[in-house]
């Protein structure tokens, strides 16, 4: 009996021991599971935490996408907007025993507010005080070599625009909205989210004191870098266009100007310049922020006679006139209490429609518009895209104003027929001329050729046809009439020897700032056209705002167009089609 009791007791002890072992195994299993979880499943999170702050920053802060332009001949990409690593110099005042000495040394190298920096460095309980931003590597190394106590550097991403002023209205700049850096104007503004990428997230459980709980639930979502953007522009054409525009504006003492070149077959922008421009690297030095607005897409103007081919194309497309149709010009048209006259009050007598364009006769344009009729004229103007934004990928686009045409009144149709009483943007105008050059098909203008995603995917923009505005035969007829304008009319200085250049001048009047009517002394000269007329490779609009030395566009915008066209035919390797003696 005693023996049996002893055996039972021994069994109970063994059972307890086994239970203890079991518990230990379960506990060990739990530890193993936790280790597995920490080291395998949540490895990324803890690896990030184990890294220094810089690495965590790198994983959470996306790299901003860059902007490139092409060289059409070599097909190489050239940067227009690049990321640059600059340095923030900061001080740890706790580590500085001689703040005066540190500031003395720094003020010899950097442009700093000595008093302000000194007061910051004297905050003995502080551990972080920024001293200077955006220092180059050379400055960083120089200051590091001084061996000053308590000074440290931190990478500070910045943006660099190697082409400086060239194409500044297209590119925009990376500005500040108080706390964050944000793309503003141009591509930087339009694609601000795509270029910026997406910030990562580090979610860490914290205790009541705000400290990280190392064994708590954590997760890391890595940053997504921004997209790179490749523009349709050719950097050489862009450079030449912007340089020539700036020279022309300077030569004429003008307020400004625009120069846009597009591919009529695709709608791709080959160059887009505005003057005056700005250096996006130093955008904060610009005194007038209106300079940031793209004159090609934001500012509207009454185009003047450069609009006459639009009117004429509608009339020819409907078959109500032909290039040989004649009318008798009496020098003026009286509509109600208004009298509309020709430029410089000229009287031309009997003229053909071709001569109407060659001599830029206002009454002739009114004649053609009246043959079209108010309603159909409005429809044609709208079909060319006027009155609506083109939706080009640039910030701040204006749609112009053709609302008077909705009224279907003779006065408004008549004035609009030669480009007054309506407003357009330079981009709308060059796009409309593009339709004439492209056999009557209006193409959507675009400036983004490709978007390169961080994962390597490339999204290419396909040319987009909007509508057939006029018949191909009409487009050919108008093209021939516009060639005649350059050869025989006011557009001679836009011509290029050996090439059929089609185009039209426009000397637009500017409405008075106060009161009704137009300013007698201020004009905007435009020349829109394309070449070669038989197979157009480019469409261009040159515009000079308020030239001081000349009034007419044939002396301001037309020569600029001619210079640029002559350079373009060589650059694009377009052989001449006329033998020049």
């Amino acid at each position, binding site marked *: 009996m005693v023996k049996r009791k002893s055996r039972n007791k021994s069994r109970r002890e063994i*059972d307890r021991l*086994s239970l203890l072992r079991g518990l230990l195994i379960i506990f060990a299993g739990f530890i193993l599971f936790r280790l597995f979880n920490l080291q395998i499943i949540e490895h990324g999170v803890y690896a990030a935490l184990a890294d220094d702050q*810089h690495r965590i920053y790198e994983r959470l802060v996306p790299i901003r996408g860059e902007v490139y332009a092409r060289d059409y001949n070599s097909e190489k990409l050239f940067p227009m907007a690049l990321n640059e*690593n600059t340095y923030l110099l900061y001080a740890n005042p706790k580590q500085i025993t001689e703040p005066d000495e540190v500031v003395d040394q720094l003020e010899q190298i950097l442009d700093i507010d000595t008093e302000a920096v000194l007061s910051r460095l004297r905050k003995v309980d502080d551990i972080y005080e920024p001293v200077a931003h955006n220092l180059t590597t050379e400055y960083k190394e120089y200051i590091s070599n001084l061996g000053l106590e308590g000074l440290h550097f931190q990478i500070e991403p910045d943006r660099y625009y190697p082409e400086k002023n060239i194409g500044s209205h297209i590119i925009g700049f990376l500005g500040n909205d108080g706390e964050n850096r944000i793309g503003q104007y141009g591509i930087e503004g339009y694609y601000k989210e795509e270029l910026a990428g997406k910030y990562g997230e580090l979610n860490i459980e914290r205790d009541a004191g705000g400290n990280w709980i190392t064994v708590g639930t954590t997760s890391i979502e890595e940053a997504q870098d921004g997209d790179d953007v490749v523009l349709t522009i050719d950097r050489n054409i862009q450079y030449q266009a912007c340089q020539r525009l700036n020279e022309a504006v300077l030569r004429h003492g003008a307020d400004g100007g625009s120069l846009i070149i597009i591919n009529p077959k695709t709608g791709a922008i080959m160059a887009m310049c505005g003057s005056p421009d700005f250096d996006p690297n130093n955008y904060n030095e610009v005194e007038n922020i209106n300079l940031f607005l793209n004159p090609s897409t934001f500012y509207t103007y009454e185009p003047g006679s450069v609009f006459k081919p639009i009117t004429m194309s509608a009339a020819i497309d409907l078959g109500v006139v032909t290039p040989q149709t004649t009318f008798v010009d009496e020098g003026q048209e009286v509509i109600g209490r208004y009298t509309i006259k020709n430029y410089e009050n000229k009287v031309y007598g009997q003229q053909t429609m071709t001569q109407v364009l060659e001599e830029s006769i206002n009454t002739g344009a009114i004649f053609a518009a009246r043959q079209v009729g108010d309603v159909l004229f409005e429809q044609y103007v709208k079909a060319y895209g006027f009155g609506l934004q083109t939706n080009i990928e640039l910030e701040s686009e204006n749609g112009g104003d053709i609302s008077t045409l909705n009224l279907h009144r003779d006065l408004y149709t008549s004035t609009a027929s030669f480009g007054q009483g309506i407003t357009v943007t330079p981009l709308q105008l060059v796009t409309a001329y593009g339709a004439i050059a492209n056999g009557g098909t209006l193409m959507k203008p675009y400036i983004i050729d490709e978007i390169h995603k961080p994962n390597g995917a490339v999204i290419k923009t396909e040319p987009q046809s909007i509508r057939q505005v006029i018949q191909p035969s009409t487009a050919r007829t108008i093209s021939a009439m516009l060639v005649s304008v350059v050869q025989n009319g006011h557009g001679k200085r836009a011509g290029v020897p050996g090439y059929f250049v089609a185009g039209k001048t426009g000397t637009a009047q500017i409405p008075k700032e106060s009161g009704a009517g137009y300013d007698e002394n201020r004009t905007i000269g435009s020349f829109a056209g394309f070449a070669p007329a038989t197979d157009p490779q480019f469409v261009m609009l040159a515009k000079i705002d308020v030239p001081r030395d000349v009034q007419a566009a044939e002396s301001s915008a037309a020569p600029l167009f001619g210079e640029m066209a002559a350079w373009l035919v060589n650059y694009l390797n377009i*052989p001449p089609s006329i033998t020049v003696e």
Partner: protein
Amino acid sequence: MTNFNQPANQSFVKRLSLGKIEPKLRYIVFILVIVMGLAYIVIINNVATGGFALDDLRTEVDELRLQNGQLELRVANLQSLSQVESKISDLQLVQTDTIEYLDVSGGAVAVQP
């Protein structure tokens, strides 16, 4: 003889009891635990050592990336057209007045005998 003093669920505990594991199996488990423990320590040690090496490499990668960025900037600067134009102005190049295009569409070429 039946043990009537044993609780009703005792047989269940017995079935689960590790004390019933065969001695050989017990040794195998023990050795496995020791081996795996050692392996774990070795692996962790290697990982830690590798971590330092990786850290050095990462630092090197960062530095190279920085240098690369600076070089790219320098290249972009030197390739910028304003720079190019200022450089070529010293070369005193002359703009061509006439360009002649050869018509090769006909395919009529003289073959040298």
